[in-house]
């Protein structure tokens, strides 16, 4: 990675930390410790299930919210503050700016996820008193969540490269919701005929498939995950991210910034 991208990425990370993004960890810690302590008293026999389900769902949702709300402002804020002109007046290409911003935001989310993962394992140790071998599967679920963040970051950047922050947030969040139903969308497409089927199938494959990346329930029940699933999900997420980032670069390269 070239030095310019690294600089932009580290500045984006620093800016996110300065914006007190990591404060969400406090809310996460309170949520998880509260659940770990109280759920045993109000439910039966699901302490471990709740800690894993709630922990991983919170990691995912907190991260998605951060990715969308920071991602949508990455380009527009720089234009608004006019800092983008200073950056681009130096020997920095537009695509380097986009890639740097992406890595900065992704890095913020990885750090955030790392601390949350410590919280999840801590809460698990509290309710189960010891770790078991299948608990390592939680790491796979966390890895898939990070892959999900990469896709959302790239989508937020894509929308941010041509739209206003508000609209970008709406688009990105809508795609997150639609992507959660990707399997159903393909099912609906299969029920249609002719041209409609082509369009519906195309749309179903175009939206990100977050349902394949969601293995929280399986991990909570300690079900093993095949290596092929891990490999193919990784490749899918990288290709989808590359696709969205390429779109963002293409648009941003042609955008009139005057």
């Amino acid at each position, binding site marked *: 990675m070239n030095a310019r991208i690294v600089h932009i990425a580290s500045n984006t990370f620093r800016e996110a930390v300065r914006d007190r993004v990591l404060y969400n960890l406090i809310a996460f810690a309170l949520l998880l410790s509260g659940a770990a302590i109280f*759920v045993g008293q109000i439910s039966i*026999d*699901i302490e471990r299930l*709740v800690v894993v389900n*709630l922990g991983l769902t919170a990691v995912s949702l907190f991260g998605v919210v951060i990715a969308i709300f920071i991602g949508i402002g990455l380009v527009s804020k720089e234009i608004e503050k006019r800092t983008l002109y200073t950056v681009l007046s130096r020997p920095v290409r537009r695509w380097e700016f986009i890639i740097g911003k992406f890595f900065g935001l992704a890095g913020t989310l990885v750090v955030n996820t790392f601390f949350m993962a410590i919280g999840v394992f801590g809460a698990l140790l509290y309710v189960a008193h010891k770790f078991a071998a299948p608990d390592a599967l939680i790491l796979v679920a966390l890895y898939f969540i990070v892959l999900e963040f990469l896709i959302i970051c790239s989508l937020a950047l894509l929308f941010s490269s041509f739209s206003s922050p508000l609209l970008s947030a709406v688009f990105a969040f809508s795609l997150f919701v639609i992507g*959660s139903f990707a399997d159903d969308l393909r099912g609906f497409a299969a029920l249609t005929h002719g041209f409609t089927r082509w369009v519906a199938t195309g749309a179903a494959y175009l939206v990100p498939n977050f349902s394949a990346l969601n293995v*929280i329930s399986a991990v909570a029940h300690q079900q093993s995950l095949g290596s092929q699933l891990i490999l193919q999900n990784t490749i899918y997420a990288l290709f989808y991210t590359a696709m969205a980032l390429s779109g963002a670069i293409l648009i941003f390269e042609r955008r009139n910034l005057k």
Partner: protein
Amino acid sequence: MTSTQRTTIVATACLVVSMTACVLLLRHLDQIRPQATLEDVLYITSPKMVERASLGFDGLAACLYWTRTVQYFGHRHYNREKTYNELAPLLEITTALDPKMFPAYQFGASFLAPAPPNGAGEPDRAIRLMQFGIEHNPDNWQLYYDLGFVYYTELKDYKKAGEVFARGSVVPGAHPFMKLLAAQMAEHAGDFTTARLLWSATFESSNETNIKQNAIAHLRAIQVDEDITNLQAAVTRFGERTGRLPASISELVSAEHLPGVPADPDGNPYVLTPEGRVLVANPDDFPFITKGMPPGYKPSALPKFHTQS
């Protein structure tokens, strides 16, 4: 005192006073408003809809619905309510969201099947729930055990119970008592021995304290039912032999050559009424007994559970 310090003190005081006032007012409002009926309301009854609304986080949604089910059942059971209208839909939503949530099947069937006030009195829904569980977890022998249990205890359908135990006994890793239970159902289904075997199996196969306590309560009740049956038979024999009823339990003991004054599992001697009925001294201590209760007896409190057999 600086201006900032003054503002801080005043703002802190305002915050504390407002917060206290809000809490006190809410407590007052709760008293004057009619009782909230939220627990009786299920806004979305379709499991599919709830699954969609959970945005893929169906595991967490299942945990929330299961917790709500436990709270719903616990609250109504505590108040000795006779209806549990939302129990079956809550369980169906929970298991549709997470078909591998075993506590929902295991406890759910024991919430649904028994007649009120111990349960919802819906054994058919309990059977459907267990069948759904087996369909999605065919390699879990305990689900077969629980289904057979419902057939045995609630519907007294020993043939079906035997069939289910037999099906469960061939599941890899099934406990050996499954085969034994299947055989017992064919020949001695109504015996106290079979009932004792079933509840002992429940006690041994579960790690859950509540289930173990429930099994102990049932084993104690079986002991009482068996004692009362035997003693009542002794009273009948005594009457046939002497033409009168025994005057006391001691007279019955000596006439029937019993080893001592018969007592319940807590050590309290059984009581013989002038009408020749054998009763248990403290029926509230044995919530699941079917015999030995005074005429017109109604349980006065929640079942008492014992942690030791």
